[in-house]
């Protein structure tokens, strides 16, 4: 018994470490598990938008489809063409998934709860530079796509990789500037402070322009339609992942869908008031997930509504419309805050 007590005492002071690791595992697992569900949701919703049924054969409402798809992808042969750079070819999808999961580490999704006398915050890490961390790590995600394009030794892949990096650099600017007006309003980089400052009304009411630009730039950052130029089928076969097969191919999609969730969560935290319920009697965490789910549906809705825009127009739109507008918005916001 003395041994056991000592062991317990030893672990007690490292409780934060254990809680932290458990939280990290749970959130990483949940993110990976959410991807098949999102694929199912996207296919069902796309079916509805295009007046057809969508997957409905495997299980009720086609719910077994993602399971069978994942099993199929796992057992597929992994083909690497002989001219490819083997190491980079393997590294690229890993970078995409890794950065996508790590970005989510600073996303809070509820107020701290008390379990067994320990206060547990519903986030993996509460760093006081939360928003900057998100931008820093999601900026690393571009490397996955560029390296995939470079390592494949294929013209279409290379074009896709270059397009994705150019697009993401251009739209990251708008994303940052739109978020900056919220930072100026809140006076903090921490996402939790931002949610707390929206206790009375969500930021979308006073910053509608910033919300619009953040959302547009967010769609471009996650490479979703109508900004999915890097993987434009008609011109580039499949863009940077033309040469990928099996699970490595699926990993690019995992990264894309996790980025979609992260972007929706960011928009919710910055503009829609996070887990504030505004008088609606639901749990805060349900309010947060409901908002994120709604934004995810908007992502899918946009995909089935708008055609892909041309590459030069994408760049013109980003640099000549969005960046000046967001600068103007930032100028007005900071002037008002100072006054």
């Amino acid at each position, binding site marked *: 018994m003395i041994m056991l007590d*000592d062991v317990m005492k*030893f672990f007690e002071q*490292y409780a934060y470490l254990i809680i932290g690791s458990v939280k990290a595992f749970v959130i990483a697992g949940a993110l990976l598990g959410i991807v098949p569900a999102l694929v199912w949701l996207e296919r069902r919703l796309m079916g509805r938008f295009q007046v057809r049924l969508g997957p409905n054969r495997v299980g009720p409402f086609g719910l077994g489809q993602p399971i069978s798809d994942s099993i199929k992808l796992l057992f597929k042969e992994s083909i690497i063409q002989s001219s490819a*750079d083997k190491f*980079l070819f393997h590294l690229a999808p890993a970078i995409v998934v890794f950065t996508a999961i790590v970005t989510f580490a600073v996303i809070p999704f509820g107020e701290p709860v008390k379990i067994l006398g320990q206060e547990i915050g519903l986030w993996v890490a509460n*760093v*006081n*530079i939360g928003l*900057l*961390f998100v*931008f*820093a*790590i999601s*900026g*690393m995600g*571009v*490397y996955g796509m*560029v*390296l995939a*394009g*470079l390592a494949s030794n294929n013209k279409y892949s*290379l074009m896709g*990789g*270059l397009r994705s*990096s*150019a697009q993401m*650099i251009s739209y990251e600017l708008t994303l940052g500037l739109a978020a900056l007006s919220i930072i100026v309003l809140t006076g*903090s*980089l*921490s996402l939790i402070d931002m949610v707390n400052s929206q206790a009375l009304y969500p930021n979308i009411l006073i910053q509608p322009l910033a919300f619009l630009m953040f959302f547009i730039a967010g769609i471009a950052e996650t490479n979703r339609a109508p900004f999915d130029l890097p993987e434009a089928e008609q011109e580039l076969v499949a863009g940077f992942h033309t040469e990928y097969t099996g699970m490595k191919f699926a990993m690019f999609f995992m990264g894309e869908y996790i980025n979609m969730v992260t972007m929706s969560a960011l928009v919710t935290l910055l503009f829609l008031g996070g887990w504030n319920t505004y008088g609606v009697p639901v749990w805060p965490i349900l309010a947060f997930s409901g908002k994120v789910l709604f934004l995810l549906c908007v992502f899918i809705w946009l995909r089935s509504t708008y055609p892909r825009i041309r590459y030069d127009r994408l760049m013109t739109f980003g640099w000549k419309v969005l960046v000046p507008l967001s600068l103007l918005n930032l100028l007005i916001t900071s002037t008002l805050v100072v006054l």
Partner: protein
Amino acid sequence: MFEFDLFELTRATVTMVVGLTAVLASLGVILCSAPIYCALYLIGHMICLALLFLLYNAEFIAAVQLIVYAGAVMILFLFIIALLGGKKEIQEPSTERSVAIVFVATMLGELFFSAAVGPTKPIEGVFDIQTVAEVGGSAKAIGLELFSRHVVSFELASVLLLVAAVGIICLSKFSYVPVRRRLK
């Protein structure tokens, strides 16, 4: 039982490993013959530097290091390598190389000579962990320092960058005229 401080030990080990990786990565930048791997080593080196900043509680600097250097600058490097098609260099002895080796050897000798002078002293900054916590975060601390005591140099640096940006646009936009003339 278990008297040693696990936290400090882990921290020291992690700092050591990250620092060693940074040195190895920077060696990789100059020793590797394929340009794309050189660029990747440089990215790895910058990420290690960001981790070191993070280990010394400078979260803001770490994030800025990642966004500006590892994110924006290095992606342009990769861009250029992708466009030019980085071929592997063939390593062969030349006079330039022997001159470089002599130069590096001199520098190393000077380094060892300076080590013989005596123990080195750490440079004390304005901030320690307590003051940063009092101000409320490293981002705020840097902002206060930058916009109060160093505001002139900060603004001058931003003007310099603006001039560089304008200059690039002038150079790239107006050099097309002779090309068009040749086409006629």
